């Protein structure tokens, strides 16, 4: 098995490498543009995937409602920005306030959802919590649809286009650049939070062993709530940035984006934060190249095939720990 997988891996890498080099030589700009497009897409997935992976790491729950938290973040930003816009506030202030409100409200929703739908199920079968999450996701979607509107709403970008790069502006838009930079910053901050702060250490301890963590004086419930809050905050940032990128939102955007991000998180090894980012980038970039050089109809088929292939050879994802099963 080992030699087969190494051989197959080498063969696949060789073929891909050959085509990549060939295409790079034929049309380097196109190659580069596809790469940047993929990078943006991957960053978008990463911002959502982080929340998934953190929650999974700590309570082993696929948080189906995470996509909805992301949608609510974007929706809140839209509402705040529109109200302030009509009151005639300064655009920079609006952008900042919209971001702040989106993050605060998403965190509050993430916190509340955990308290209602997951906390009572902490000792129940894991699938029950999953169904509860699905129910929550349906509820939130319809709540937003009924309270606001089923129509798509235009989302005026909060990030100004830049015109001073004019001859080269087509290579990367200002929003795309912001998305990539923000993802990097969020990653670094999150890394610091997990590695060096008290709460980060508590999170890692809880993820490893809840009972032991509790014995050592960690309030597990608070740690879990904190995880949901942090995950929701990254989702909100993602939500606002994506809404700026595509220029519209409605109540249903959370589902598809959430699904893709979840795949990315699994691809990277669910529960692992660098894994989520790596998985997202691999997924985004390879999707972009696949559409660019093959058929976009089968983009998702390709994404899933990568997932299956990687999981067959690395059953715990790219960076997942392959821990022995606990009895």
């Amino acid at each position, binding site marked *: 098995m080992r030699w087969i997988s190494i051989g197959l891996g080498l063969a696949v890498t060789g073929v891909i490498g050959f085509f990549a080099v060939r295409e790079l030589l034929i049309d380097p700009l196109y190659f580069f543009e596809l790469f940047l497009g993929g990078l943006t897409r991957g960053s978008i997935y990463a911002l959502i995937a982080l929340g998934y992976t953190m929650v999974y790491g700590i309570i082993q729950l696929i948080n189906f409602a995470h996509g909805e938290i992301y949608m609510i973040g974007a929706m809140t930003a839209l509402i705040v920005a529109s109200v302030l816009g009509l009151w005639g506030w300064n655009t920079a202030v609006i952008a900042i306030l919209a971001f702040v409100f989106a993050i605060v409200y998403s965190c509050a929703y993430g916190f509340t959802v955990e308290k209602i739908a997951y906390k009572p199920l902490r000792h129940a079968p894991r699938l029950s919590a*999953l169904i509860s999450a699905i129910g929550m996701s349906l509820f939130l979607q319809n709540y937003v649809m009924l309270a606001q509107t089923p129509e798509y709403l235009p989302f005026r970008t909060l990030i100004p286009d830049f015109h001073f790069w004019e001859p080269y502006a087509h290579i990367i838009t200002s929003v795309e650049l912001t998305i990539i930079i923000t993802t990097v910053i969020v990653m670094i901050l999150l890394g610091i939070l997990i590695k060096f702060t008290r709460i980060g250490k508590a999170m890692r301890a809880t993820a490893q062993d809840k009972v032991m963590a509790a014995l050592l004086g960690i309030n597990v419930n608070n740690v879990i709530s904190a995880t949901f809050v942090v995950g929701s905050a990254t989702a909100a940032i993602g939500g606002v940035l994506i809404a700026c990128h595509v220029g519209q939102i409605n109540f249903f955007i959370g589902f598809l984006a959430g699904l893709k991000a979840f795949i990315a998180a699994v691809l990277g090894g669910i529960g692992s934060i660098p894994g989520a980012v790596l998985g997202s980038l691999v997924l985004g970039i390879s999707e972009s190249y696949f559409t660019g050089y093959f058929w976009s109809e089968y983009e998702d088929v390709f994404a899933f095939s990568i997932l299956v292939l990687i999981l067959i050879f690395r*059953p715990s994802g790219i960076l997942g720990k392959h821990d022995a099963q606990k009895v």
Partner: protein
Amino acid sequence: MPIKNQIKQSLIIAFWFMILTFPIMVIKVNTIRHTIDFRWANFLWVGIVTFFASMIWNYFLRRNEEQKKTDIADDIPLIHKLLQNDRFRRPFLGLVAAFFIAYPFVFPMYHTSIMISALVYVMLGLGLNIVVGLAGLLDLGYVAFYAVGAYAYALLNLHFGLSFWVVLPMSAFLGTLFGVLLGYPVLRLRGDYLAIVTLGFGEIIRIVLENWDDFSNGPRGIGDIPAPSFFGHQFGQHDAMIYMYFIVIGLVLMTIFFVHRLEHSKIGRAWIALRDDEIACQAMGIDKFKTKLTAFALGATWAAMGGVVFAAKTSFINPMSFTIWESITILCVVVIGGMGSAIGVIAGALVLILLPEYLRAVAEYRMLVFGALQVIVMVFKPDGLIKSVRKVYTFKAREE
């Protein structure tokens, strides 16, 4: 907790929700006409509703806690107790049988129609129950096999004119085949990795059906799929529906019989053992991989047969019917009904599929209520509506 504190707590919660839902419930911005609408009435309503909801919610949560403490032994669901009681079992089953036989003649056609849908979900639920409930493999791509069955009937009928009764066993075989083919490479994966890979397979099959026009007619779908014939005789719309109903009843009975027998067979006990403890199971000499593969393939068999019935009933299929939501619905049937429990799954299917139909009275709020109910059922009955009861095997020493 004294009542005063409870009220105080609920007030705090109500206030929290008023703030929480403020932007979405109260403000409505029209970004096109540039007007803002503040709906203060909603603000008040949210407060009042969440106040009472939280009182009730907390009351039941506390009661649940207390119950858990007091009676642990006696948690066998009522229905199981009834079925174990010989004096009661016969009249009860007779009544159920009478109800289902009389059903299509008593109720209008619409009720028969949705009952057929619900019964198809009973089949699917029982099939998935083998995979998820008994063997403990989380399968989020169950709809793939359902699609295989439905398209098998549609295409074989379109190209070769094969009838329902010919395709039904063929699709069962096809389902098993696909189950083995898809299961073989991935059953090494554990838990949620398996879930996401099966989800991937489900989506791959749907996308292929969507794009491969020459094979499946793409998103336009296949129409005019005939309803099953009765020894070569085709019924009119109304009679066909009733006939269909009895076919489905027959298939469901067959499914219940098979699943029941399987559950208590050697392989069935192996599944349950595998679900509970993989390592101990292997130590007992059970071939883990083969056991999992049988569960996966058998589950697929029922899905494919359900697909044939579905195609025959709807008479038109397109890939839209086989999205991931379908897999999720079937999973909800199994979990809400009660994992591993056949009666639970039947109840789950009937409740989950019929409920949204009857909730049409609250048309727009239907899915909102449905989602909320899912959460409520899971929070208060995490083992599902009707919990599974383990068969107790007693050792009887042979008398010498």
